[in-house]
């Protein structure tokens, strides 16, 4: 540092002055104050780490928030949340970086690859939430056209649903890209005068429905529950020909409604084999759609942080939580 040697005195004066300044307005020192973000987790018992994948929808986040909260506060685990899309999360089972996925919608393809073929993951049973997939209309339409909720009547209203995208037919707004849909086949096999338009994201679907309800615009589209948006706008499901076991076996010939989904939990083999307290917690975890919707509402509408939302729910439901804790 030949530079500072040249003007040494100056620098020294400055440093000294600044030092004085510092001690004058001093304040708390890092590490010595209790408020200094030093809220380290209570000494981990034997819980260890829990790597929780966070799939990008609020319902999932509600599950994960509550599990993470209980694991940290009650079991003293070290929880790491990883924001990942489903496929990447499942890859994490193989690479050992994800321990648990706590709301899985079907995904037969991923199950086959990672549970059956690679044997790096296993299902830990239902979360208690029931998944429903189908075609929905905004509530004002269900009120104004009560018979619209029967698929047989859809053609009658096809003209209402025409848009710039649908080329003269009714528009069926489809496509969160994360879900396998049969809608194109359904439209064809039910011989409906509709065209499937790919919205491409959940955000696009929700915005569409929100605008449709607010401005009383006609819209029909693919949606699912549980979903936080349903607590804002209570979409009404259209009844398609009832689902029967195996009616969707051939994707090209499907002409029936989507099956009800039992949402389940999936964990990595490694995590299961270790069978720690966190594993027990994930295994025991189960709650209702209403429970999840409540926490999801805290997060999405009340804009609470995931941890705060979880805390609020856990404090209000001690019995349910108790049932999840490992018997020790």
């Amino acid at each position: 540092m030949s530079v500072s040697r040249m003007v040494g005195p100056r620098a020294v004066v400055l440093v000294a002055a600044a030092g004085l300044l510092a001690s004058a307005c001093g304040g708390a020192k890092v590490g010595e104050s209790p408020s200094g973000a030093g809220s380290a987790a209570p000494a981990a018992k034997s819980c260890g780490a829990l790597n929780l994948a966070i799939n990008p929808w609020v319902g999932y986040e509600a599950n994960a928030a509550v599990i993470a909260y209980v694991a940290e506060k009650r079991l003293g685990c070290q929880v790491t949340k990883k924001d990942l899309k489903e496929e990447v999360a499942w890859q994490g089972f193989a690479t050992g970086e994800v321990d648990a996925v706590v709301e899985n919608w079907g995904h037969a393809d991923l199950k086959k690859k990672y549970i059956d073929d690679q044997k790096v993951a296993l299902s830990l049973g239902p979360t208690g939430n029931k998944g429903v997939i189908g075609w929905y209309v905004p509530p004002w339409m269900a009120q104004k056209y009560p018979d619209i909720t029967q698929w047989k009547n859809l053609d009658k209203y096809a003209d209402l649903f025409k848009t710039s995208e649908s080329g003269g037919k009714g528009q069926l707004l489809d496509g969160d890209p994360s879900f396998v849909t049969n809608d194109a086949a359904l439209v064809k096999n039910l011989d409906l005068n509709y065209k499937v338009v790919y919205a491409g994201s959940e955000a696009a679907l929700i915005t569409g429905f929100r605008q449709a309800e607010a401005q009383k615009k006609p819209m029909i589209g693919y949606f699912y529950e549980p979903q936080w948006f349903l607590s804002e706008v209570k979409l009404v499901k259209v009844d398609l020909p009832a689902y029967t076991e195996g009616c969707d076996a051939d994707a090209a010939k499907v002409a029936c409604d989507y099956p009800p989904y039992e949402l389940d939990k999936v964990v990595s083999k490694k995590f299961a084999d270790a069978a720690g307290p966190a594993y027990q917690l994930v295994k025991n975890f189960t709650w209702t759609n209403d429970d999840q919707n409540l926490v999801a509402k805290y997060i999405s509408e009340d804009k609470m942080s995931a941890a705060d939302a979880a805390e609020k729910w856990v404090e209000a439901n001690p019995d349910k939580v108790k049932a999840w804790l490992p018997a020790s």
Partner: protein
Amino acid sequence: MTATVVARRPVWSRPYLLGGILAAWILLWILFRGQATLPLGGAELTPLHERIGQAADAIDNSRNSNPLFLYFINYIRLFIDEFVTFVQALISRPSFGRPVPVIGWLGVVAVATAVALLYGNVRVALLTAAGFVSFGLLGLWEESMDTLALTLAAVLLSLAIGVPLGIWAGLSNRFNRLVGPVLDFMQTMPTFVYLAPLTLFFLIGPASATVATMVYAIPPAIRITAHAIREVPEATVEAGTSLGSTPWQLLRKVRLPLAKRTIVVGVNQTIMAALSMVTIAALIDAPGLGKTVLKALETLDVGTSFNAGLAIVIMAIVLDRATSAAGRRVETAHRAGRARGRLWRRVQVSVVLAVTAVLLYLSYVYVWAAEFPKEADIGSFVRKGADAASEWAQANLYVSTNGFKNLVTYGLLNPFEAVLTGSPWWLVLLVVTVTALVLATVRVAVVCAVCLALLVALGLWQDSMVTLASTLVATVLVMALGIVVGVWMGRDERADRVIRPVLDAGQTMPAFVYLVPILGLFGATRFTAILAAVVYAAPVATKLVADGIRGVAAGAVEAATAAGSSAWQTISKVQVPMARSAVTLAASQGLCYVLAMVVVGGLVGAGALGYDVVSGFSQLQLRGKGLAAGLAIVVLGTMLAAITKSAARRADAAAHGRP
């Protein structure tokens, strides 16, 4: 030989020929409409897609046995992980047993400002200080530092790889020819396509995010360095050689010093490219602002995502201005140092360093300087304001925006798409090839034919045509906007100063932020996708046009004014024609940027290739199709680039008075 024949053909005949081709096309379209259009449904796959999926699976499965992974990729991953974690420990994450990072907010602000001051100037230093403080004020200090850490790591690594390769490409024609297509590929291949596979190679975490960012950020580093080396005047290099310089001496003492300024532009572009990957990398758990944006998108929380987007824009502008200033300084610093006396400079440097050191120390020791005070919060106002603005727009602008949407969709997009998708594939191939023959060279025609044939082979013909139609319409809008605003900026210094930051914001604001409001206004439609592309691409085109207009020789404008031209005549007869090569460049760059938004378009209703890529990223069984769609986008890009490049050469030649 045909090439020269075509080139020599009188200019006037070209419009007639094109008109003839168009007429023939429409006629044949009417005759053959709907035949051989090769549609493929959303969930349908071709055998090729299945094979690609299987191949990807095979690679996945060999991960633990393949020596390439065991001995090579794993070490790269470890190195990058350690590197990023180290930077994070310094500025963003609690580390070394401390509840806070080593350097607190005050220290980071001090260091950033000092760097801007020493390498740039006072104005940039003030901007930097204000920008960094605003991260804290927006309530996003830690997220911003995570983003900064990741960006810095990715940029440093990109430069460490890109600059040497760029030098090589600058010195060797053969390597340059080799590396060019690879870089094109890296830049046009949608990130979504390689994001998921990357996590298999580099695992979930900083390494994957950094590598994903580098894939996108290295090309400008290589390209611009190579360009910088190439543009060193041959005469100077020859002089160096004639005095007996070794190749190494030539590089170190002649080429690099002369190329330095342009290389700094490369650094600048590398930073911008890296920052634009921030939100997408968040999909594989990259920490930082991108995550905030994506999380907010789940609940359509416009305010929160705008707040975080704003922080990204501020970071981009600060880094851009700082590196640009450093670039200008490169030339003058040396001289100023001598001219104004070394002593004065040393005093400056010492004072700045001393103050920085003190602030660093404070931020290490004291809580108030380590953690940004939570009381100083303007983030909540920004969030509320953005929410209110978005809601107001969605509620009140709908009618007029809908009209505009319908005008463009029915008037321009639908007819165009109908002809492209309704024609048999062989007809489109024929028309494009013949057009390329007329407009460009045999080589370009062959490239076009091969590209279109590839689209057929990839099994995504119709989706490609839909995407092509939207892409071209978006490019037309981009150019319309770019020329109007660019001419205005080019002629009016003050307009330039006001508009430029807005353009910067449009370019760096993550698309996810403004998707929700424009979805509210235009619904999930192709038009929404086109609009998103215009927001992203128009700034580049506009800046290029503005620079081109400003570059028109003052003498020519003066002569036109002296001859009594009106402003309109000056623009239309002098400035725009003389800036023709800049306008062509703007069109080709605009096209590139529009293509880069195809995937985002898929998220908001564009369907087609963009949707194929996104669903391939999300669904395992569509993985092969997603990859094929990514390739199709690259193929489209290659074809359009070949055409625009040839048009650019023609414009260049015309600008220099050659036929």
